[in-house]
């Protein structure tokens, strides 16, 4: 009798757990181990513009709103509440008001309120001084006039002009809400947030450790006990360590497609995704300084470039070709292939372009026996150097004899600022696939990231015009035209849009990446380990 009862209990138990298994397959616990490529310059996301800071520390924070993780593409129409529960526009779309979540606490126990939101954006718009050592994305918030609170649970962004992209910028990984009461140096070394994981430890050049926040406002989450990043500067060593099972996941976008192939050759079950890494290789041409004040020479330079060869060499043809905006289908705003054909230098026939380039150069008095000497300046960073080597090789086709000048990172930006270069090879990323972010960060007059100080009043008008447009299709048309004009002008000729790979073992579940940004999906509150 007792035996029968026990058997029944067992069967029932199995059934219950089977049902539960369908509903709650996620397992609690375990520490996710991630490889990291370098020492993050600091833990303060608002002060940095690198994935090295963004990926490990995004899980410490929350945003007001966030890109829907279930949407493969970051899109303006797929944005979900995070610390904000709802939002609405008023005053002719010039006021964006958020209702904030109740009962959220910072990791140090203090309650979260609207004052923290105001504080954060007063800080990044530059209206409040003293908390940050540097402010790389000040240009994003050019349109924010003021931020006001109405009680502890409501906050309003006042805009100069309507700007649909504002919500998109708020949803990105680079826009966390900071606590008002924590001083700046602590945010750089021991950040406090409201997110699913608490900061535990940051050992320089060694490791970053996060632990589960048991009081996270999303009930039952996160699943992981903690996340540990180990800094392994050598990519070769990091790959070996991943393959040997010491790590579960790699720093996103850090591997090349070749690396991913090699890893999968060794461990066939490894999950690897190759996708745009939001970085592009472009040329900085000093248009104020002879000889490149001559537009003909700039044009010849542009005609020498074989974008396909760059893509083939750097990524086995996976790198995308496009303008300033990320090419479709991953990118929302890039040229359609048909449109791209009409942009000079993007047509398929490289030999024809180069012949044209040589013709220009002959007119300028150069030829196979009289090559034009040129110093190509770049940073002492592998991706920069590799691209420069290819560039110099291509320049030979239009009678330009390039010589590479490699600068230490410490000198590079200072030289750019002084305009002390002729042609620079530059690699740079943008956090969000959005025209406002791209144009106002990199191409508008007076922005600090506009290295070549390209300033075109006609385009300035168009930047603002598209920024206010709510109709997606119409706005995209304007964006395409702007992008074409930028490439025609040689403002900063875009050579390729990089692809990067991310690999993880199949026991890592719930990881959701977006195809058009590597910066926005590292909250880790849905991730669990099936070990």
């Amino acid at each position, binding site marked *: 009798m007792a035996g029968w009862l026990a058997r029944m209990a067992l069967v029932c138990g199995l059934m219950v757990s089977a049902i539960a298994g369908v509903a709650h397959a996620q397992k609690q616990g375990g520490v996710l*181990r991630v490889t990291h490529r370098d*020492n*993050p*310059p*600091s833990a303060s996301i608002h*002060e*940095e*513009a*690198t994935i*090295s*800071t963004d990926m490990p520390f995004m899980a410490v924070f929350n945003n007001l709103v966030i890109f829907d993780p279930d949407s493969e593409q970051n899109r303006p129409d797929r944005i979900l509440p995070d610390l904000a529960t709802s939002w609405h526009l008023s005053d002719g779309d010039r006021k964006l008001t958020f209702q904030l979540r109740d009962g959220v606490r910072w990791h140090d126990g203090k309650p979260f309120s609207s004052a923290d939101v105001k504080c954060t954006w007063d800080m990044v718009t530059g209206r409040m001084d003293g908390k940050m*050592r*540097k*402010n*790389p994305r000040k240009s994003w918030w050019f349109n924010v006039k003021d931020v006001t609170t109405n009680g502890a649970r409501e906050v309003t962004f006042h805009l100069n002009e309507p700007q649909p992209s504002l919500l998109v910028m708020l949803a990105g990984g680079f826009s966390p809400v900071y606590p008002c009461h924590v001083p700046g*140096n602590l945010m*750089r*070394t021991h950040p406090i947030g409201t997110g699913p994981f608490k900061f535990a430890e*940051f*050992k*320089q*050049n*060694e*490791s970053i450790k996060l632990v589960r926040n048991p009081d996270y406002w999303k009930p039952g989450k996160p699943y992981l006990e903690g996340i540990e990043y*180990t800094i*392994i*500067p*050598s990519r*070769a*060593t990091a790959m*070996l*360590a991943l*393959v*040997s*099972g*010491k*790590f579960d996941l790699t720093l996103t976008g850090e591997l090349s497609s070749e690396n991913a192939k090699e890893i999968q050759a060794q461990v066939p079950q490894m999950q690897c995704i190759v996708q745009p890494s939001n970085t592009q290789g472009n040329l900085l041409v000093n248009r104020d300084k002879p000889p490149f004040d001559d537009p003909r020479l700039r044009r010849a330079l542009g005609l020498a470039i074989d974008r396909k060869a760059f893509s083939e060499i750097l990524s086995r043809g996976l790198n995308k070709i496009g303008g300033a905006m990320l090419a479709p289908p991953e990118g929302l705003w890039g040229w359609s292939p048909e449109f791209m054909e009409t942009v000079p230098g993007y047509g398929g026939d490289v030999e024809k372009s180069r012949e044209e380039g040589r013709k220009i150069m002959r007119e300028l008095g150069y030829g196979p026996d009289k090559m034009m000497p040129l110093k190509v300046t770049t940073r002492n960073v592998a991706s920069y150097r590799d691209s420069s080597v290819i560039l110099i090789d291509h320049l030979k086709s239009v009678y330009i004899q390039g010589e590479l000048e490699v600068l*230490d*990172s*410490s*000198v*590079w*930006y*200072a030289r*750019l*600022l002084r305009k002390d270069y002729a042609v620079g090879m530059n690699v*740079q990323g943008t956090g969000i696939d959005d025209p406002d972010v791209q144009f106002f960060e990199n191409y508008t007059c007076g922005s*600090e*990231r506009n290295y070549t100080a390209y300033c075109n009043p006609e385009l300035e008008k168009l930047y603002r015009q598209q920024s206010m447009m709510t109709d997606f299709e119409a706005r995209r048309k304007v964006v395409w035209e702007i992008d074409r004009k930028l490439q025609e002008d040689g403002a900063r000729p875009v050579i390729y849009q990089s692809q990067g790979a991310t690999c993880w073992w199949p026991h890592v579940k719930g990881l959701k990446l977006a195809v058009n940004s590597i910066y926005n999906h590292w909250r880790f509150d849905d991730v669990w380990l099936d070990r």
Partner: protein
Amino acid sequence: MLTYIIRRLLLMVVTLFGVSVVIFLLLRIVPGNIADILFDSAGLIDPAEKAKIVADLGLDLPLPQQYAQWIGGLFRGDLGFSYVSEKPVLDEIAPRIPITARLAALALFFSIVAGVPLGVISAVRQNSGLDYGLRVLSLSGLSMPSFWLGLLILMFCVHFFGTIPIYDRAPETFWAWFAMLAIPAAAVGFRSSALIMRLTRSSMLEVLGQDFVRTARSKGLSEANVTYNHALRNAVLPVITTIGIETAFLFGGLIVTETVFNIPGVARFLVEAIRWRDYPMVQNLVLFIAIIVVTVNLIVDLIYMVVDPRIRYSE
């Protein structure tokens, strides 16, 4: 002897003072400083923000004042704050020293254990095939870049054992440490062992040719007895010197090996600190290294003096 030690200690202070000045100036003739590097990660330079950082860190002060601040702090036991981590330098360096010390000690241990006996064998069997083989082996040890050796070992391990000895967390037991560090230590120590072997061999040969060894032989002592009791004891002196020289060289090997095997010791940390223009870190680390090198040299000389009273120290 006491006056000799005092004199040496005084000279040591002079040397270290010189090192501090050299490294201090060398760092500051560098174009670009920590402010430039900090902006590097942000992809821009804002001149106003940069000026503020420079002023905050005191980098706009006159050089003598900056130097006085550093050295004054040293005497109070205050090494300053890292520019990058904004934590006290001591807190950053201290936990890394034992890791590098263990690695270096193990490497030195390996190199002595392998180098001395092979050197003796090579000397005893001078001009035999074995001698030639060992000499070529030791020369090749001196010829291989240690990071290449490290890479080859890593590949080998992954290929045959499916795993690699890379540091991902601090081991807890002695044997765990040993297992973690043995392979990197062998990679660094290979070069040193080759050097020690060569030196043991040549000093053994010199001693074997000397009178007292011939006397010992003529007295009918066995060859083994002669080799080990008479010759080796005397040949060990130059080996001690090599160990002194090797401390400095070992460090070079440690830098690349810690990089290849991702060991979070001081050597790799120094490279990172140089890259970041983290002056307080670099200055103190380099001074620390100099203290080690100078102290080891002093100890070696003292051992020499104790072991071999024939040497006079009047200069």
